């Protein structure tokens, strides 16, 4: 199937090596452990495998079968056909890391363009070629900031309104260093943590402050004062951003963020049950040398022709080994390509349109829901983007079950991550949701309420 040799080929090759049979090449493996019997299903042909995978896939209910209001870190946006069509070019997806620039200009130029798009979108100066996802990008922000102060500042302040998975991953990554304190998110504050109390925790021992924009609950918060205070104490500020929202909102770079990062999945990457996605990561010039991960730069070749190369590689693990600040040795190559093509296709107008559609439809949905008795908008004053929280009089599980019976994925049960938000449901609304869909949701919820 995938091994091409004929019997004759094998004989000729063994002869030239000077052994009688292939097994002879494995003599150095301890004999009692050689050729174990594996309990695996018998091999299948491609036709059979395709059939099997189709039936496994058919056991799922998808966001195409169901009307989905699920978000909470992964969003169902429309992906133009050209994105995946171009990704399927073998020249892109069967290439490896562009270590040989002479024969990797395609990948290198795409990353260079990705870096530029991320800088323009976030208002930052320098973007790397990506981290694994939003959560690991958050952990990398902590590593960067901690290293920036040579591990002397021992406090990282993270808002409770930052994606819970990001906060978990930060703690996993940093668990070996017991002197580093990750604080700020412990007190059960519901969806509206007290900003002043949070700001008051910033001090001279603070290396980094992490907030999210829009926050995990979809709210658009003004961080100007927080960033000013952090900078007065010499601390860095990292802002986790939703890239779609940046089609509309002031970018983090403009409000003084030192680091902007986020989950790039909304930029043309399918939900695919949680991965692969991409973590984008950009900094101001002052932090350029602290940036982990790959970077592509422009130069010229021996004939003076424009060329792209991986640059500042002396920071990376293959050269620094144990002195490297991060062990990352890949980027989300193909996913950054998807995001680059997506942003090129949508361009300025397309992304503005998508952001506006999300915003408008989410507000219409919130408006509809708040008119149903038994459901109330939790925060009626803070502006929000495309995600919002409603409080239910009944247990969320029952509401979700009722909706699912009507083919609706009703949203995310915040009680999973926030004990204080037990009856709280979070809904995300993208451009794919129509007015009809919203009114259907509303009708089913009315029915739930009266049924």
């Amino acid at each position, binding site marked *: 199937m995938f091994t091409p040799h004929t019997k004759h080929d094998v004989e000729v090759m063994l002869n030239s090596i000077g052994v009688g049979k292939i097994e002879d090449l494995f003599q150095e493996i301890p004999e009692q452990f050689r050729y174990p019997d594996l309990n695996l299903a018998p091999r299948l042909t491609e036709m059979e*495998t*395709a059939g099997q995978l189709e039936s496994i896939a058919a056991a799922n209910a998808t966001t195409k079968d169901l009307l989905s209001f699920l978000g909470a870190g992964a969003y169902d946006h429309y992906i133009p056909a050209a994105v995946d069509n171009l990704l399927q070019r073998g020249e892109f997806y069967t290439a*490896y890391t562009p270590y040989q620039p002479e024969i990797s200009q395609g990948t290198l130029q795409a990353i260079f363009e990705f870096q530029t798009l991320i800088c323009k979108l976030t208002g930052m100066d320098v973007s790397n070629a990506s981290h694994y996802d939003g959560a690991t990008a958050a952990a990398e922000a902590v590593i960067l900031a901690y290293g920036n102060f040579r591990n002397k500042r021992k406090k990282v302040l993270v808002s409770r309104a930052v994606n819970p998975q990001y906060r978990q991953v930060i703690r996993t990554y940093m668990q070996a260093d017991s002197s580093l304190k990750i604080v700020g998110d412990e007190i059960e504050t519901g969806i509206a943590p007290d900003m002043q109390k949070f700001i008051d925790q910033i001090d001279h021992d603070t290396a980094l402050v992490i907030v999210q924009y829009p926050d995990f609950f979809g709210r658009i918060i003004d961080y100007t004062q927080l960033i000013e205070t952090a900078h007065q104490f010499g601390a860095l500020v990292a802002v986790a951003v939703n890239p779609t929202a940046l089609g509309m909102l002031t970018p983090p770079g403009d409000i003084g963020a030192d680091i902007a990062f986020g989950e790039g999945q909304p930029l043309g990457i*399918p939900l695919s049950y*949680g991965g692969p996605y991409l973590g984008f990561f950009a900094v101001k010039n002052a932090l350029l040398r602290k940036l982990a991960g790959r970077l592509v730069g422009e130069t010229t070749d021996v004939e003076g022709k424009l060329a792209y190369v991986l640059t500042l590689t002396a920071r990376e693990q293959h050269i*620094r080994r144990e002195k490297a600040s991060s062990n990352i040795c890949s980027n989300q190559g193909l996913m950054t390509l998807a995001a680059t093509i997506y942003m090129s*296709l949508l*361009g300025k107008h397309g992304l503005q349109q998508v952001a506006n559609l999300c915003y408008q439809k989410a507000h219409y949905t919130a408006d509809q829901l708040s008119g149903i008795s038994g459901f109330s908008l939790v925060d009626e004053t803070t502006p929000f983007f495309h995600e919002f929280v409603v409080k239910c009089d009944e247990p969320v599980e029952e509401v979700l079950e009722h909706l699912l019976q009507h083919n609706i994925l009703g949203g995310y049960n915040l009680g999973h991550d926030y004990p204080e938000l037990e009856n709280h449901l979070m809904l995300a609304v993208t451009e794919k949701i129509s007015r009809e869909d919203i009114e259907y949701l509303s009708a089913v919820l009315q029915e739930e309420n009266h049924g």
Partner: protein
Amino acid sequence: MAEPTIFDLSVAGRTGVTFPEPDVPETALPKGFLREKLQLPEMSELEVVRHFTSISQKNYAIDLGFYPLGSCTMKYNPKINEVVSRLPGFAATHPLQPIDTVQGNLFLMYSLQEMLKEIAGFAAVTLQPAAGAQGELVGTLIIHKYHQERGDHQRTRMLIPDSAHGTNPASSAMLGFEVVPLPSDERGNVDIAALKELCDDRLAGLMFTNPNTLGLFDENVCEVVDIVHKAGGLVYGDGANMNALLGVFRPGDVGIDILHFNLHKTFSTPHGGGGPGSGPVAVQQHLVDYLPDPIVGIIDEGDEETAPLYGFIHPEKSIGRIKSFYGHFGMHIRAYTYIAMLGQEGLRDVAEIAVLNANYLQEKLKDTFTLPYDRPCMHEFVLEGYWKDVPDIHALDIAKRLMDYDFHPPTNYFPLIVHEALMIEPTETETKETLDRFVDAMRKIAEEARTNPELLHNAPHNTPVRRADELKAAKDLVLCCYVGDDWPGVQE
């Protein structure tokens, strides 16, 4: 000609895709939060398609030719993988859906965990790590937590062979381990005497790549594991080179405690121009409780009438979550598909042909190039890209000249313990004709090195660009495209 960037191609007023007008009553936008300018390219769909098609043609790729990049296992990526992973049944599922709506996904992940356990001989597997390097991080986190839980706070030293990949020491250092280099002996194995000397109650573990980066199977594997265990340490297996061992040898059988896989090497998921990878981690029974949270398991066995219910298990002493959601699910589908198509018989065939191909090349090239460790290799081998009679020629020149013969160069300057290393991994999917053409090219280059060295020094000659000025790239940093009037250079 240099391809313009998407920003050069941008013309104000164009767009590649349009969306419907809002069908709901409009809400006022949030005052004070609106951005003033958004500098994204403005292009028609065809312009976008032509641009990316055009730059794709400046890449070398497995689909175009032989890619013997050592340690990277650049094997054929079956097309069926791409088809099944895009089935809407998989691609259009949200990671936070109720588990009873995604039993297909969970069944697939559970089955892949079972397959990987069986292939490598371990008790449990997590699919969460995003890449091999993150698998290593999981491994070192587990080693750290294991010793902490046992009160062995003094176990702070990680032994790392001098032939190891740079991620090994980098991953260890992230956990605060002291990295202690372990020398290799003259056969390329771990130096047993040196190992014994370093094994005391400060030992946390050993990061062990077997076959190692020289492509050699460590003949003393059982003894190495035994010595580390007796000293109270754990053995981490770097599974980067598992392609040589499929169906032939299971690292778990000799007591390796933890092992990561690279689905993008061994199990045919595409390299994607540098990612996404996928780095599942397998552990022995005594470490199962430390796995990242969550892993997939059967949460209700079911009975004759009802199928088992798959869901998430939260290991008791878990090191915690290491990425969003459950890993690179799209890669899990591809690896599952590949293993289903191979079965035990096919997996063994993969390892055997990979090793046969490498030994064939090694045999054919060892008269022309210095082979520092002359013994049967596994799936790859390392030559010296240097001859004493032409000291001006370096491994880099040979690598670059290979491009003129339409081959991707081998890995060069790694492993660090071989002078001017050229690390060659042919993989099992290449024909004998391809290998013979490669041998011819390598011999021809060796001849050119003597007769016309300038050909090598100035190589490559026929590529989209030629040797690039890396000093200039690092000194006059330009990390963004020219956009309008904005100067893209970095001002520090």
